[in-house]
């Protein structure tokens, strides 16, 4: 181990970037070599000097203000859609349209224009529907969801247009039907309408023994923006608090983090069968002191008081 190597690595040593064996070598060498010990001392002093520079620290107000401004900006920000990676999500697209009336109007015009283009030849013949039905029947049965491609045949007035259509569908069946359940699970996560999400959760909450349903309920309890939906999901999960650790954890999160006191109170009651669990007890102790809702504080104290004394 020579002085040149040590002097090259003393900065990394002071920043704790050396491997354990290299660090040991530097220390041993500095004990024996006055020059390298002096270099090490100089680098350490430089390190301390740089800390004299005053540093502004992030205050809670600054952080809170930054978060709020970000939240506001996110309201009007859209994600770039990566079509090659994600499948087309019609519900998300519809949600976007709800907030973009101008874009919706443009798409309607393009869709209508494209639809008309498929019905008429560019030469002067009458309207021809691609599937042989009347044009009016075609536009009534389906709505254009997007134009994929427009190709003009070279040297002619012929145009070929590829487009997508969406058809409204309806299905009826028992909630035990897997197809119905699949649609309900989709609606629980993806629908922009909280009423529809609540309807689907309301139906699904009677089937929490199904693993996929339980996952959807846990997701709704954790992430849904509507407290009514979260309450429904909580109701459905309550009976699984004892046997499923994921349900217990989701209830604990709701108990401590949910901004709705009704959801927190619901979580309190749901966790009563497992109140002696260490994590639940700790959460109850914290809530008894700090929850902003008096009802939640009182209920937490009541549950704590009803517990057997544990050393």
């Amino acid at each position: 181990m020579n002085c040149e190597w040590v002097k090259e690595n003393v900065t990394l040593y002071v920043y704790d970037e050396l491997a354990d064996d290299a660090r040991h070598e530097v220390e041993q060498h500095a004990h024996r070599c006055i020059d390298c010990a002096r270099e090490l001392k100089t680098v350490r002093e430089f390190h301390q000097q740089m800390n004299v520079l005053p540093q502004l620290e992030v205050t809670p107000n600054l952080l809170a203000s930054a978060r709020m401004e970000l939240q506001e900006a996110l309201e009007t920000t859209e994600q770039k859609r990566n079509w090659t990676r994600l499948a087309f999500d019609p519900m998300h697209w519809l949600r976007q349209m709800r907030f973009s009336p101008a874009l919706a109007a443009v798409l309607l015009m393009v869709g209508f224009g494209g639809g008309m283009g498929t019905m008429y030849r560019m030469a002067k013949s009458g309207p021809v529907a691609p599937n042989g039905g009347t044009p009016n029947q075609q536009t009534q049965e389906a709505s254009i969801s997007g134009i994929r491609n427009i190709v003009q045949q070279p040297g002619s007035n012929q145009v070929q247009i590829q487009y997508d259509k969406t058809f409204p569908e309806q299905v009826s069946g028992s909630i035990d039907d897997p197809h119905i359940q699949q649609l309900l699970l989709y609606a629980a996560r993806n629908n922009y309408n909280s009423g529809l999400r609540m309807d689907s959760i309301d139906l699904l909450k009677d089937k929490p023994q199904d693993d996929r349903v339980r996952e959807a309920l846990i997701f709704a309890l954790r992430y849904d923006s509507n407290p009514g939906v979260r309450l429904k999901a909580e109701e459905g999960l309550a009976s699984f608090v004892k046997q499923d650790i994921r349900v217990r954890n989701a209830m604990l999160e709701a108990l401590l983090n949910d901004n709705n006191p009704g959801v927190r109170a619901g979580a309190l009651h749901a966790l009563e069968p497992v109140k002696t669990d260490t994590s639940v007890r700790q959460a109850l102790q914290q809530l008894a002191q700090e929850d902003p809702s008096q009802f939640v504080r009182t209920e937490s104290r009541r549950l704590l008081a009803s517990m057997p004394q544990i050393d």
Partner: protein
Amino acid sequence: MPADAVAVPSDGWKSAKMGQSGSQINSRRGHMVGQSLSRVNDAELIREAQRGNRQAFEDLVRQYDHAVLRLALHLTGSEQDAKDIYQDAFLKAYRNLGSFRFECSFYTWIYRIVTNLCLDHLRKRQVRKEDAPVVTDSSGEEYSLIDQVADDRSGASPERDLMRRELGARIAKALEKLTPRERMVFEMKHYQGLKLRTIGDALNTTEETAKNTLFRATQKLRAALADVR
């Protein structure tokens, strides 16, 4: 945020109800709650956020935003500039989340975005050739950095106080003379405590290059401060 730290679980924007900052609330959470929150798989959160779930994105952001704001504040010296970088970084992350393919950690990905924005800021600042090391608070009030290097210890001598203030000013001036990349690497290593490997990733380069940049930065700074006792 140290490179090898486990991302601290967030409790989401909902904790604003307590009227306190997220970091204070997190510090008082029960041990089991912290573990239960950490069971929310980051990959799951990212996928949910990629599907347009804003709450999932906000939960994800909460794990990193204090560290990002701190880095931006140290570099810019201005609360408003720091908030601008913070907002630009997370909005960019949100807009481009669809292109995140788990080829690196989300931590690295976020730091790449933030680092690039900070480098842009440093480059613009260099072009404007700002000399005086001043900071601006959120009300727009400017004050000299030198005034902040006060020694509040009782019995501190005015001479020592003056020396510290002069040293502070010289350090600030010496830092301004580094190139943006050197400044960035030094800031992330010395003041943020990140590993060189993380710094290399954030700058989209190798650990070795980050190491060499750190050497150059420290050599320049040591030379600038060589005559200081």
